[in-house]
């Protein structure tokens, strides 16, 4: 029994190493291309968003794929991470001049606060099941977005000022600075995100989730997913492990949010970037990439972020084509008939190559 475990462990380690290597190879290839000047501005600009969405997709995959709970509120955690991270940067900008250090601080703050939100929201939410759980996560995401839109925080010589729903209540002295200005959100955020930071963050997130799912806790989490009652009967503390996975998932989404905020000079909470639309988009990455398959999430996130941009030549038709491709990819990946057909093709290919070798 032990031997078998060891063997399977080894296989998993091999898989993980393979993933890390592929990411690093992609990173090196991209850097070489940039150095050679053969990468367009568009592609260079897309690198950080691709990393951002990959990270959030990894986070959500932990929740959907391993914990087996559907969340359509992960954009809310991204939002929390983005705003707290950016806030941290704005406050520390004067005292810390090193950009890397500044980003690390923002990441820490954003991740921790997002984790805290994940924990607090997780306590009530995880009592629910299935689509009810999904709608409650959606509700929390929308509440976060709504509150941030009417939140005013400013700083001047008298200290901090807070107001909700009415920014006019804050009268600032001349040196005063708006930190969060209602719907205007946070502006003038220093540009700290880079492709390197994004790749490192992907690797770190992968490291965290791989270690989690292959640990004792990870097996407990999967046991809960597969059969909650059986898991409970063998003494697994359901609440604890569910909360653990959900919190880590939220934290990773928060880290993605920090990266998002520091890639743009302004961050606002709109339905397009932190609303349910984004949550669903991330869910699309996860399902398309395969549930519980982190590598798949990264590939799906990168491909689907890239797709509308490379289709720019099609002008007004590009979003239509994007929708068609999305449907086609889902059918190709998930329809039982397609899966059968694909397997047939693969076996035929294998036969052919086998013959060729012989």
């Amino acid at each position, binding site marked *: 029994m032990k031997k078998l475990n060891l063997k399977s462990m080894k296989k998993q380690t091999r898989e993980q190493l393979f993933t890390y290597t592929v990411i690093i190879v992609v990173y090196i290839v991209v850097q070489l291309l940039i150095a050679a000047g053969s990468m367009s501005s568009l592609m260079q600009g897309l690198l950080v968003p691709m990393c951002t969405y990959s990270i959030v997709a990894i986070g959500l995959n932990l929740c*959907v794929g391993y914990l087996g709970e*559907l969340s359509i509120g992960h954009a809310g955690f991204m939002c929390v991470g983005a705003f707290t991270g950016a806030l941290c940067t704005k406050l520390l900008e004067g005292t810390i001049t090193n950009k890397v250090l500044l980003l690390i601080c923002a990441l820490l703050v954003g991740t921790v606060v997002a984790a805290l939100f994940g924990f607090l929201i997780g306590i*009530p939410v995880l*009592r*629910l*099941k299935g*689509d*009810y759980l999904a*709608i*409650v996560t*959606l*509700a*929390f995401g*929308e*509440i976060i*977005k*709504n*509150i941030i839109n*009417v939140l005013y925080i400013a700083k001047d010589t008298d200290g901090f000022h807070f107001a909700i*729903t009415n920014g006019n209540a804050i009268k600032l002295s001349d040196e005063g600075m708006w930190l969060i200005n209602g719907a205007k959100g946070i502006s003038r955020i220093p540009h700290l995100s880079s492709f390197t930071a994004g790749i490192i963050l992907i690797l770190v997130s992968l490291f965290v989730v791989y270690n989690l799912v292959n640990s004792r806790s990870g097996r407990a989490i999967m046991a809960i997913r597969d059969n*909650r*009652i*059986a898991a409970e009967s063998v003494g697994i503390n359901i609440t604890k492990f569910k909360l653990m996975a959900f919190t880590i998932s939220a934290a990773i989404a928060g880290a993605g949010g920090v990266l998002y905020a520091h890639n743009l000079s302004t961050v606002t909470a709109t339905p397009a970037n932190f609303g*349910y639309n984004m949550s*669903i988009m991330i*869910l*699309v990455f996860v*399902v*398309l990439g395969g*549930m519980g398959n982190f590598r798949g999430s990264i590939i799906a996130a990168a491909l689907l972020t890239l797709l509308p941009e490379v289709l720019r030549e099609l002008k*007004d*038709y590009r*979003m*239509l084509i*994007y*929708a*068609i491709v*999305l*449907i086609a990819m*889902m*059918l190709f*990946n*998930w*329809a*039982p*008939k*397609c899966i059968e057909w694909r397997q047939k093709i693969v076996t035929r290919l294998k036969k052919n190559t086998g013959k060729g070798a012989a």
Partner: protein
Amino acid sequence: MNFLSYLINGISLGSVYAIIALGYTMVYGIAKMLNFAHGDVIMVGCYVTFLTMSRQGWHPLPAVLLSMVVCTALGITIEKIAYKPLRRAIPLAVLITAIGVSYFLQNAALLIFGADTKSFTSVVTLPALKLADGALTISGTTIVTVVACIVIMVALSLFIKKTKAGQAMLAVSEDKDAAQLMGVNVNATISLTFAIGSGLAAIAGVLFCSAYPTLTPYTGSMPGIKAFTAAVFGGIGSIPGALIGGILLGIIEILGRAYISSQLSDAIVFAVLIIVLLVKPTGILGKKMQEKV
């Protein structure tokens, strides 16, 4: 008096949510999938009515009937192409495909009808009801919407209880495989559900646009998500639940806006939803699922 008129506004908004939620809940009950494209089918229905009624000058009745036919056909087509092949796949896969269909419909409408806002003429010609010397006004559209909502709900309930096809739907929603063994044509039943749901979407769309008369390619997405919330609120899968959920959601939205803060009205609606679901985890009229070991 103010309270009463807020309440009427709430019921008016709520009954529109309810009528959209009926479509969601029916499809969910039988196919166990969240049809995110439902809101966009509504939008298509509105455009059909707009084109025939406002541009061609048709009478509202044939215009609405045509839009029902178009929506039903659209619903069946979507189901055949995008959902049916995934019937044996995991439920999430269908959800994502539904989102793809939703994007498709929005962008197709954008290309065909353009982005500019259209003003929808109300199909309801009933005069407004004035009570208490004009201090309270109930618009004709509100009356028609509430009545339509109740009629549809009763008709649907009767259809499911009394007809063979309705019984088949019930059977499929309980247990797909067992229903198949009993000789129920599962595929046809699901297609029928989509057809009815989409036909209802056309009515919902026309009433929605009559009450709130602007029409853009994105008209359907927001009420769609609100109606989905309403359906869950009332207990998804339950037809009277959709009605109650929709109307309660409308009332909470309006009262929250009136008495707490209009800036925070979205947050208030969702906060109430969360509290209700925590107290009653399957919605107001939801069935409690027995867990099997």
